């Protein structure tokens, strides 16, 4: 009886801790969501309560402006292109690294693995000079290609690990059936690796979606701005209008959180898996 009660108290305390931590996370976001429906006067007198009256104009103004949608589109275009390129290039390399023994393989693998700890900020200056030289400033490729390049290490490492788990018998069977290396890679290996491909794609999309430094320096032309750059500029432009900026922030969170809701498992699997590798 007492054990039962002790257990129940324990459960209650644990729940309490969880709710408190949850509140730390939810309350700022909630403040943003509600704040977007207020005006500055309401924000200073009533920061946390319900808006009174509800003013949807901050949200509707943004949603009817072309700027927000263009930034959303740019972010999407850049995320999808970076992901396709990095996954394609990494899958090919990982295939070779996983299933061929050749001189210099360990060196190359190590080279890519070291790339995992290059702080991106280290390369940004010369990268900028390089992109300027190649005429890729104010060009989405100027963000897409470097992002793909910097995504290679983690993608190769995860995929290589997965490709190694596919038994050699399958490859032998494929070869007996007349598959060459390309046929095996394309028709057998890739379809089998779908879960791993999903994982690395999700990681690449999130990384690209959240990237700020590179688009910040590559795009001076506003029409190419991605959401992070846009949010930051919007804040600078409307410093005095807190409610309006809140609405913009909240709207820019929606796609990321929506994506999280859909791809939570791949994201977490990828992050925990890559660390174990």
């Amino acid at each position, binding site marked *: 009886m007492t054990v039962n009660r002790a257990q129940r108290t324990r459960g209650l305390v644990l729940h309490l801790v969880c709710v408190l931590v949850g509140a730390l996370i939810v309350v700022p976001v909630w403040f943003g969501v509600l704040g977007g429906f207020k005006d500055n006067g309401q924000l200073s007198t009533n920061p946390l309560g319900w808006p009174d009256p509800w003013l949807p104009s901050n949200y509707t103004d943004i949603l009817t402006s072309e700027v927000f949608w263009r930034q959303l589109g740019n972010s999407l275009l850049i995320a999808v292109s970076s992901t396709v390129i990095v996954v394609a290039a990494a899958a090919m390399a990982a295939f070779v690294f996983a299933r061929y023994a050749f001189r210099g393989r360990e060196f190359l693998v190590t080279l890519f693995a070291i790339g995992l700890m290059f702080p991106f900020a280290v390369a940004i200056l010369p990268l900028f000079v390089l992109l300027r030289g190649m005429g890729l400033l104010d060009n989405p490729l100027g963000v897409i290609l470097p992002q793909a390049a910097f995504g290679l290490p983690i993608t190769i490492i995860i995929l290589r690990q997965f490709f190694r788990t596919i038994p050699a018998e399958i490859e032998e069977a494929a070869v007996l059936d007349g598959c060459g290396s390309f046929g095996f890679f394309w028709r057998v290996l890739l379809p089998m690796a779908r879960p791993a491909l999903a994982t690395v794609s999700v990681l690449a999309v999130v990384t690209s979606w959240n990237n700020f430094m590179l688009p910040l320096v590559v795009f001076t032309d506003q029409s190419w701005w991605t959401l992070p750059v846009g949010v930051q500029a919007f804040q600078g432009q409307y410093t005095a209008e807190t409610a309006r900026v809140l609405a913009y922030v909240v709207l820019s969170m929606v796609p990321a959180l929506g994506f999280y809701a859909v791809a939570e498992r791949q994201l*977490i699997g990828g992050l925990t898996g890559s660390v174990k590798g």
Partner: protein
Amino acid sequence: MTRPSTVSDARRGDPATDPPAPGPGTVRQRGRQPRPGRGGVLAIFLTPALVLFLLLVVAPILVASYASLYKWNGFGLPENFIGLDNYTRAFQDPTFRGDLWRGFVLVLLSLVVQLPAALALAMLLNQPLRGRAAYRLIFFAPYVLSEVTTAVLFDLVFSPNRGLGDAIATWLSADAGTVFADPDTVLYAVFLVVSWKYFGLYMMLFLAARQGIPKELSEAAVTDGASAWQAFRHVTLPLLGPTIRISVFLSVIGTIQLFDMVWVLTRGGPIHSSETMAVTMYEYGFRRFEVGYASAISIVMFLLSLVFALFYQRIVLRRDTAGAITNQGGPR
């Protein structure tokens, strides 16, 4: 974060080509096969990744180390060779030295506050608790928000007069409206926002590692009379060692390149009191066009990461390959 791979046994695939001696003689089969030979296959599959990586990751770092030896504004070719002057300048610059110190403080705070909190929450969510899936979902959610979004949100949360911070401060009769404007508090405020976004990641890593430990181990300890704390301290914690060490590693590397959050929240201010190496580098490279000097700062960042990574891999992570169970009750 691969283990130092000694894997020669990894050669499980590739039964198509002749199994022994895959060494130098690979090209020799070229003529025998109608399809591209081994060398050709290797070349075709490796080229895209190698070109991208060498051109856009390796080359820029080489260029940066070259440019760091010049006084260069980034236009034309660097011509004014000044040797290591940029480096000596950096280490005499109070701002840059401050960056190093602030980086150290951020790492320390992360080790003392963020990682233990994440570990505690992971252990908590490992309990049979109703609704823990929902808690987990919420705790991890900030990780998917960009640093910029997070920073702007918190900038507004703490904006004077209309923020949430003000309301809470008034309620506590304190002064929160100025946390980002006060040189004494700004670094801690930045740290809290960083933790808000990233603790969920570490929690997830710990949780995954915890779930990989067989229940029987801590159960056995409890059966043998260990308290829950003892079982955690002497059984679970040592087994979580590898993950903890990886988390420390990630936290250090992340701190070295911290930029977005600081740039949006404070621009490194007030009076450099929240500036990081990456912010200093950006300031000199993209605002003052002292590309040579900024490159030197990048290279220092790179070397710090590299040296730390090598040292860490050698000294700390190596134990993990020896099998975690053997050092249970060890120095930790």
